[in-house]
């Protein structure tokens, strides 16, 4: 694609970001933020980074957008939705000056980058040992598996953190408003049609993620989205958060990942994979992670319990 297309895309991205950050209306801002996320995902495709594009579209735009809409409703219901007081102009001036300076400094840094190959050459060289065709999955679950392990636990910790905000009378209860209703209408049939297809997409994304773009985080997001649609369609209610199977589902993925790391440790090299068996072990980790990530994301969106 030509540079003119890139230039147009970058201008659109900056425009959407400006509308999202400076919009008067909160809901409108969120909508522009989601548009912005989709444009960013497009930028990643044009750069050839399909894995990042999928993650940005699914998590950056999708899940974050839904979260923000939920927060907007929650804050409005709580009476915190009144228009914000105007910021005094000296603050605008100071912030604007600081932002301009920051932009200048970062741009200067970018333009003075020496340019080098980074690690682009190192990855393919070592890729063979992991038996994975997708170099990004190789980095995420091979070379830098420790980062990914910590990251999945950041997600788990975020869920514990969100749950810590549960009003005490609702502890162990059900999150979100009750949507359950007699199943009819378009959304309901849509909701019935969706789960098997969503499941197939998710299974494919993990399977393909070994060799082509995809992976546990993207697949987990798809599954979470399926669940959210089921709830919105009124086919099923959110689960009671004190349920043991639910909690087991949340810790399954991190536990398997941690377990593989510990088995490696007992064999002398933590977070290493048995030679010749790397791919099956990585797939087991990824499928377990997918389930846990799906559950965790869906519960992060649902928020703390609000019903008994």
């Amino acid at each position, binding site marked *: 694609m030509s540079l003119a297309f890139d230039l147009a895309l970058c201008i659109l991205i900056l425009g959407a970001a400006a509308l999202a950050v400076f919009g008067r209306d909160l809901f409108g801002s969120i909508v522009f933020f989601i548009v912005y996320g989709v444009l960013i995902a497009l930028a990643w495709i044009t750069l050839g980074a399909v894995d990042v594009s999928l993650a940005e579209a699914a998590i950056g735009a999708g899940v974050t957008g839904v979260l923000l809409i939920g927060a907007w409703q929650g804050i409005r219901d709580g009476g915190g939705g009144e228009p914000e007081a105007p910021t005094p102009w000296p603050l605008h001036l100071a912030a604007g000056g600081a932002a301009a300076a920051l932009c200048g*400094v*970062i741009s*200067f*840094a*970018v333009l*003075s*980058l*020496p340019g*080098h*190959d*980074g*690690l682009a050459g*190192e*990855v393919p060289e*070592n890729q063979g040992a992991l038996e994975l065709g997708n170099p990004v999955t190789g980095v995420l679950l*091979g*070379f*830098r*598996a*420790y*980062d990914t*392990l*910590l*990251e999945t*636990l*950041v997600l*788990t*910790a*975020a869920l*514990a*953190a969100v*749950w*810590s*905000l*549960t*009003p*005490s009378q609702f*502890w*162990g209860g059900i999150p979100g408003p009750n949507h359950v209703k007699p199943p009819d209408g378009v959304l309901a049939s849509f909701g019935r049609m969706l789960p098997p297809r969503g499941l197939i997409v998710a299974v494919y994304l993990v399977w393909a993620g070994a060799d082509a773009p995809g992976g546990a985080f993207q697949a987990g997001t798809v599954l979470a989205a399926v669940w959210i649609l089921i709830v919105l369609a009124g086919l099923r209610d959110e689960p009671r958060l*004190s349920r*043991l199977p639910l*909690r*087991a589902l*949340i*810790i399954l993925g*991190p*536990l398997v990942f*941690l377990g593989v*790391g*510990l088995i*490696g*440790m*007992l064999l*002398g*090299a*933590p*977070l*290493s*994979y048995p030679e010749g068996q790397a791919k099956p072990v990585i797939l087991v980790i990824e499928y377990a992670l997918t389930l846990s990530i799906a559950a965790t994301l869906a519960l992060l969106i649902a928020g703390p319990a609000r019903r008994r």
Partner: protein
Amino acid sequence: MSLLFALAAAPLGFMLASLILGRRAPHLIWIAAPVMLALAVLVALGASAGATGGPLGGWDAPLGIVLEADGLAAALILASAVTAAITGLFALARFGPAGRETTRRYTFWPLFYGLWAALNAVFISRDLFNLYVALELLSLCAVALAAFGSRKAAMHYLMVALAGSLAYLLGVVLIFASVGTLDIGLIAQRAGDARTPVLIGAALMSAGLLAKTALFPLHGWLPPAHGAAPPVVSALLSALVVKASFFILLRIWFEALPALAGPDMAQAFGVLGAGAVLYGSVLALRQQGLKALIAYSTVAQLGYLFFVFPLAGAGGAVTPWAAGAWGAMGFQLSAHMLAKAGLFLAAGIIIHALGSGTIRDMAGAGRALPVTVLAFGLCAISLMGLPPSGGFMAKYLMLIAALESGAWPYAAVIIAGGLLAAAYLFRPIARFMSGTDTPALQARVHWALPLAPLALGLCALTLGVLSAGPYELMVTGLPQAGEAGLDEVEPGP
């Protein structure tokens, strides 16, 4: 190597276990505390023979992530393990097993173990991006725990933490884009190739870390967040969490980019540190609430840490490394962990028992709660820097380093800070001892609870009494250690 991985993996395992154990999760601390202490001791023994560690999964840097514990990291892992283990046992009082599961009895434990894991992960990581992930895990757990006290203060804390994370991340990105590696050792070798973007990146990272460390004048979020939380949480936040971001700052300037750290930058850190010591102490002196006083004292005590930049001379080429100043900082870090946690726990008992958090209402606490007040006093001795405590070693070594390098303004601030600390800590102690009546206790205190701050206070004291061993450990593997400070400063009073 395996040991270092276990140091992060074990608390992560406890975190997952506590999520599934639910009502029975609090009992886990009886296993976690000894396991984590044993691991920390083993790491310290290993590190005392020289830095230990290696690449994870067999993938060496620049592709993989390297873990390593040098002497200072090992000392901090041990001190934080003692602090966290005792604080965790103390937490059984409030978040312990009960008839039914409640919000906080359930969520405290995963956040506590997550915080502990993240802290260890920060101490052992040699990879800038991995440090980012660990720091985020730490911040997330810390803010969520802070929200146990005041949600408003937690929100303020969260906003600062978010801004700090972004600044740090941007710095990491610029450095990787400049030198093509995230490994601290390799960055040191390659930083010369691209000075400008690396320096901009390092400045951004530092700004983010300073905000997270709450260095004056970026400390505004700390006193409300630390002062309002339940005492166990205050102890964890004040003793442990703020140390992690400071530790990364050390890694950046003393190990990744020593050649780029100029004397001006070192002096700037030192001046801000001095500002923190004086400002935090004066504000501590003016507080009416006991926990607010202790929280402001944290602002002050953190300031001392930054004296290591001018005194040990960040910038290998500019001044020789002064091992004395390095050791002083190590003592300050570990002694403050122990003593500050002890102070918060003791304060928690006193406030709980007397039913008031105002110092004025605490007359006679010494007669009603003798062991608790004794523990408070022991921790206060270390914080004031009186012998024979760990805090004394910190300030003594720092004072000598300041005088030797001719930096007399720092010497003056160290002395003034010690006097101010004595003043602000003497105020509540005098109140505890005043009057002749024994106040009636509003709530029962389990007999074992005061033992926790007492143990912490005794550990802070022991650190000073047996100072030679810890000193040797802290300067083991000291980055490019010069002999300048070692010959001059006799460890031990």
